[in-house]
Each structure stands twice: as structure tokens, then as C-alpha cells.
């Protein structure tokens, strides 16, 4: 089950890399966070960790529902361009994405010996970290860059969940509040941009 969810996580991230429309991108991000939350719930119920169950629930509520909705309303409010063509052409991305994946799978090999439990998850979360970096790089517009930043946070959460059996509750909550603050800052930035222009 965890393998299935982790596959779905990577699949939604790769699909997000190839989307050219903003709302579709937000949809894939929301699906990505949903699989992440379900993964945390599954792992948490297996190892009997209440803190992880709570953070999985918060992930679904916040990242899968609230943040995409807020971003959508923000993009409507500031009339962001809904077409977000990547600056890296799709035919190059098709070469680049498998190259990144192969590279990170081998890159994560030394790290995986240090981790007890299933080592594949570390490799997949590091590769999704790099893929979200690519998502930030390949777009010029601000909205997909924000989504790339948020997916990077998702990848780190995945790393924390699967490799270490969950970060301390306090750290998780801090990260969630950070994310909300980031959205507020983005709102302010967009507002200033509109006032100045």
C-alpha cells in the first residue's frame, strides 16, 4: 500500500512537471499532497504513532484542500496568467526527467545504507526533491514557482515520514505554520506587485 502511494506521489509530481495550465497544476499539487497525507496516515497507523496520524490529517486538510484553494482565489484576485508554458521544452524535459531520476536513484545509494527499514523511499523522496526544483526552474511565472516550492516541502515531508518514522510533532507543526506564513507573504508580494505596476 505504501509502495502504491509513493508511486502515485511521484507520478502526480511528474505529471505536474508537464502541465501548462495553472489550475491543472494546482489540481496535481493537491493530489500530490493527498497521497502524501494518506501515506502518513498509513505509516502512522502501522507503527502506532499518533503524532504522525495528526500530521497526516493536517496535511490533507491544509495542503490538499486549503492551500490550492487559497492559491486559486489569489490567482483569480490578481488575474495571474492561467497559461504557464514551461521555458524548458517538453521534448527536453522528456530526456531530463528520467536522467534526474536515474541520477538521484544512484546518488541516494550511500544514504540508503544508513537508513533502517525500506531504503527505496529515501531515493524516491530525494528524486522528488530534485523534480520539484526542476518545476521551479522551468517556469517564469510566479504561481508555478510557488507550487514548486510547496512540492519541495512535500518531498521533505515524505523524507521525514518514511526515512525516520516521523519528525517530532513540534517541528511538523512549525513547518505547517511556516507554509501558511509563506502563503500570506506571497499574497503581500502579489499585492505590492499590483500596486507598483
Amino acid at each position: 500500500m505504501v509502495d502504491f502511494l509513493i508511486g502515485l506521489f511521484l507520478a502526480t509530481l511528474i505529471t505536474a512537471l508537464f502541465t501548462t495550465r495553472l489550475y491543472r497544476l494546482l489540481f496535481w499539487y493537491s493530489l500530490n499532497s493527498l497521497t502524501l497525507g494518506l501515506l502518513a496516515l498509513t505509516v502512522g497507523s502501522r507503527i502506532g504513532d499518533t503524532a504522525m496520524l495528526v500530521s497526516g490529517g493536517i496535511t490533507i486538510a491544509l495542503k490538499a484542500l486549503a492551500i490550492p484553494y487559497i492559491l486559486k482565489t489569489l490567482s483569480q484576485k490578481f488575474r495571474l496568467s492561467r497559461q504557464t508554458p514551461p521555458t524548458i521544452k517538453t521534448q527536453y524535459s522528456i530526456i531530463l526527467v528520467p536522467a534526474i531520476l536515474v541520477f538521484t536513484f544512484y546518488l541516494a545509494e550511500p544514504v540508503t545504507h544508513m537508513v533502517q527499514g525500506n531504503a527505496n523511499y529515501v531515493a524516491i523522496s530525494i528524486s522528488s526533491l530534485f523534480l520539484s526544483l526542476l518545476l521551479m526552474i522551468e517556469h517564469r511565472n510566479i504561481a508555478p514557482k510557488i507550487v514548486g516550492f510547496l512540492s519541495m516541502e512535500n518531498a521533505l515531508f515524505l523524507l521525514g515520514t518514511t526515512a525516520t518514522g516521523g519528525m517530532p510533532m513540534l517541528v511538523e507543526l512549525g513547518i505547517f505554520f511556516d507554509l501558511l506564513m509563506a502563503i500570506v507573504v506571497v499574497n503581500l508580494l502579489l499585492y505590492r506587485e499590483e500596486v507598483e505596476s
Partner: protein
Amino acid sequence: MIGYLATILLLLLLAPILLSFIKAVKMRLLYKRPVSLLQGYRDFSKLLRKESLVSEEASAVTRIAPFLVLSPLLLVLFYLPPIAKGAFYVSFVDAFTITGLLALSTFFLMLLGLDSAGSFGGMGSSREAFISALVEPAMILTIFSVSMMAGDLGVGQAGVNLAHHFPKEHMASYLFAAISFFILLIAENGRIPVDNPETHLELTMIHEAMILDISGPYLALIETAASVKFVIFASLFAGLFLPFGMDHAWPVAAAIFVVKLFAVALAVAILEVNTAKLRLFKVPNLLGIAIVFAFLSLITYYVLGA
């Protein structure tokens, strides 16, 4: 033996119904009155009664090609994964054979388009060549990746192995292979993001452009070939990616299998309603995503074993 032959007969009989089913679901979702599920049979019998006109420029290819379009597909029907346990015949053919037979059928379809010397036929043939050249590598990669997980290169035996031992530990790469194969199913059958089977709009059509000049019983053969192709892909999907419910008696297993086929058709119909047709030069991107997922499935299996 009887079960094996009955399966093939069942697939042949289901083929027109599945395409009509997709059309009916789409019409219902668009608030139209849906067509009957038997519309495929009605079209077939109507076309058989019509006379067939052949262009003056056409050579013997036009008379031979419709049979050669259909026959490789009929051959593939015999090699599909069995639908129930203890099957009479489990085929040994691998990804290359199945892809090659499908490509042979496509080759004669392209010849048929070129032979009538109309400009639409040539255009349709070149587009079909363009798309099927991109479909083949992804399809071979996908089926090989699934065969690796199943532990057998033969497609039929792979289906049996998957039903016997579902690859729980390889779920991630299995999922990638399934995504890739579903994109291929859509592309190769000319469904909406790639080709719209219902219009005769000259700029967008691919499959219809090749068969514009064909009429009568020949057209009936080509239409049958299209529906058989869909049923091949749907049952490959059902056999390789939905491998459950096979250890019942033959009638029950066949019923479950038919339900799976209709589920695949329903998924295609819902996808068709919800997406717009891609521009022709955007189609390589979609197929590129299929190749990425197929490759990803292989490397996830090899490097990570996940």
C-alpha cells in the same frame, strides 16, 4: 479447449459493443439520447449489404489490404492472457510479437490510405506513421517491465503469474507501467486527446482520413479491425494490470473479465468527455510522457526494486 475458443468468440462479439458503449456513455454525459449498444452490429450488417466502390487509380492493394488489416489483429486475439485459471493454452509470445503484429496491421492500413491516391489518405497515413512510431517503443518498454515483475517474458504466462502472485512489493513500478499503458491505449486506438473518431473534419482526422475512400464490405472489415484493436488493448490492460478474479469457474471468471473490460471502456469515455483534442504537434509530448513512465517503471524496478 472450449473455454479458450469461447473466450475468443466472446471477445469478438464484445468488440463492437464496447465501442458503442463508449459512445453511449459519452452521449449520456453530454445530455444526448444515447445510442443503442447494438449499433455496431447494425452498422456492420448495413455495410455488408452495400456495394463497394473502388477508386479508378487504386491497385490490387485496396482489395487485399482490408483483410490484411484485420487478420494480424485476429491472430493477436489468440495470444492474449487467459481469463481463467487452468487455461487450455497459455501463449509464449512476448512484447515484440504483439507489437509487431499490431504494427503489421497499421502498415496495411497506411498502405490502404496511400493507395487510393487521394490527398487525405496520404495525409492520414503520414500522421498514423508519426504516431505509431512513437507508440511502439513505449509499448515494448511497458510490456517488458510488466513481464519482469511477473517473471516471464511471455505475455500470457505473465498474466497468469501476476494473478497467482500479485506484485505487492513492486507496486510503484507497476503503477507507472499502468499509467504508461493507459496512455498508449488511448493513443493507439485514436481516442480523443490524440484523434477524434467521430468527426470528418479534414484538418484533425487521422484514422478517418485513411479510410475515406473505402466503402461497403471493405469498410465493415476496417471498422471491425478498429473495434478488435480496442478489445485487444482493453483485455491486455485487464489481464496485466487488473489481475484478479481469475480463480473462479470459467463462467464466473468470464463475467468478471467482461466487467473489467467495461470498466476500462468507461474510464476511456470519461476521459474523452473531460479533455480536449490535442494539436497534432502536441501529441509527441503526450507519448513522451508515456515513454517517461515506461522507462521510469523499468528503472524503479531495476535500481530500487520498488
